[in-house]
């Protein structure tokens, strides 16, 4: 028997899910549509828009900047995040949670406010704008994710294996690098990828702190100012594929479920 509540929930679930997913599929479809106008009906599929974008040096410049930022943010925020998480587990629970809430504040702050504060501050201090400032700006809101993920893992870590390494004569540092870290490898890779995904997707902080030049998101913004063009679909799709790809690998290595 199909009663009405069940039917309602199925319908609701299906509609909400479609609302969430279909725009992404539409982007995928229209990146390959051969018409200049972004509308139905689709008359044929083509990869011309990809070729057009790949021929533009500005795209590759933006791509390169994105990669420089993402890799630096991934590496640095992972290293300092691990250091912070390792220190936090040694604090008392209360002190650790207060520090964690403080460090997580940049994630809750409206990006526009943080971006404009950074812009005003960097110009007033006289350090100028550019990629290093973008990387610094990204670190402050990617490190909380690394710290939270790594902290959760360390606090459940089996200290017995570290203790046995110490009993067998390893120095604390050696035990840390040969036992603790390798055992957390999936967590660390996952945390790094999450940081990279967030960094890759950021538009607002990047836009205000980069000064000159583009990353993939600011490149899309620049193209949008000149009107809608099917090549924008391609850049948006590439960006989306990269972030989703990074996220999926992160979910796989950390075996995250829900």
């Amino acid at each position: 028997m199909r009663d009405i509540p069940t039917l309602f929930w199925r319908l609701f679930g299906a509609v909400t899910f479609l609302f969430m997913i279909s725009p992404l599929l539409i982007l995928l479809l229209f990146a390959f549509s051969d018409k200049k106008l972004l509308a139905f009906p689709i008359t044929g599929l083509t990869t011309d828009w990809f070729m057009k974008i790949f021929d533009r040096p500005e795209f590759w410049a933006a791509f390169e900047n994105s990669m420089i930022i993402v890799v630096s943010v991934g590496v640095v925020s992972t290293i300092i995040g691990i250091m912070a998480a390792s220190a936090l587990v040694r604090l008392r629970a209360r002190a650790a949670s207060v520090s964690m809430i403080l460090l997580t504040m940049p994630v809750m702050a409206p990006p526009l406010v943080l971006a404009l504060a950074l812009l005003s501050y960097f110009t007033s201090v006289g350090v100028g704008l550019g990629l290093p400032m973008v990387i610094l700006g990204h670190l402050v809101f990617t490190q909380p994710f690394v710290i939270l993920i790594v902290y959760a893992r360390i606090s459940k870590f089996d200290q017995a294996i570290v203790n046995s390494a110490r009993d067998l004569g390893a120095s604390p540092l050696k035990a840390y690098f040969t036992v603790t870290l390798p055992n957390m490898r999936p967590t660390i890779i996952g945390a790094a990828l999450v940081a990279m995904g967030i960094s890759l997707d950021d538009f607002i902080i990047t836009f205000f702190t980069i000064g000159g030049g583009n990353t993939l998101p600011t490149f899309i913004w620049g193209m949008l100012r000149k009107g809608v063009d099917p090549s924008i679909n391609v850049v948006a799709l590439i960006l989306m594929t990269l972030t989703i790809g990074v996220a999926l690998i992160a979910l796989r290595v950390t075996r995250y479920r829900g």
Partner: protein
Amino acid sequence: MLPSAAVFLLVFVAPLSYFFILSFWRVKSYKLVPDVSLANYIRVFDQYHEALLFTFSIALIIAAIVTLLAFGLAFVVRFKAGRYSNLLLFGVLIALFGGYLSKVYIWKIILGQSGILNSALLGLGFIDTPLDAFLYNPAAVVITLTHYMLPLAILPIYGSLRAIDDVPLRGARDLGASRWRVFWDIIAPQCQTGIMVGFTLAFLFSAGDYVTPKLVGGPYTSMIGVFIQVQFGLRFDAPLGAAMAFSVIAVCLIIVGVAALTLRRALRVR
């Protein structure tokens, strides 16, 4: 600990402190002049109260819709979807990482006058002429931001729903409690935190956003983020912009506080 603390202090605390001080300064012939005056804040509430009101209303509407839809979908995933729940959850995660600017852009091309929605409706014969009612209005902002925030709100709500033990639910039903009673007395109170996190995320982000109103909002969607951003470009009045930013944050904190209290009351076990 040290490097993280340094990043936090140098790239968050210092800039925001400077920004806060800046909000009491003034601008004289395109130069910043240090000052200790509340003039900027008075101007914010004097000249921009309509934009503030509009922003908070639209952000509240978005946060309410997002919370409802997110709760509904999380509820379906937890209790109703059966073998499809993993698939749904996977879709949520894909949507979560689909990107911010890309999503705003997609809605721009979906809702446009010669866009995808219009052409689909034309093709299916629902309408005869393209409607220009979809894009460049507050509704477009609501749709776009709801779409962006939905997966972000689903995860915390699903997290708290998943933690609910099945046994008391069945026990209550066996002892004769109605579905509604089980829902309001057992399920709802336990996902208070998840709902509040989802609501707060959606509200804060919508209230502070300027990209969405700029790209899909049109000229009559006067959200405060757009005005804030203009002070740092065309208007060249950073102190006023900073005062706007802190006013928004202050009002947001009050609204979130009130929402938390209301929610706690609403979800109290009777």
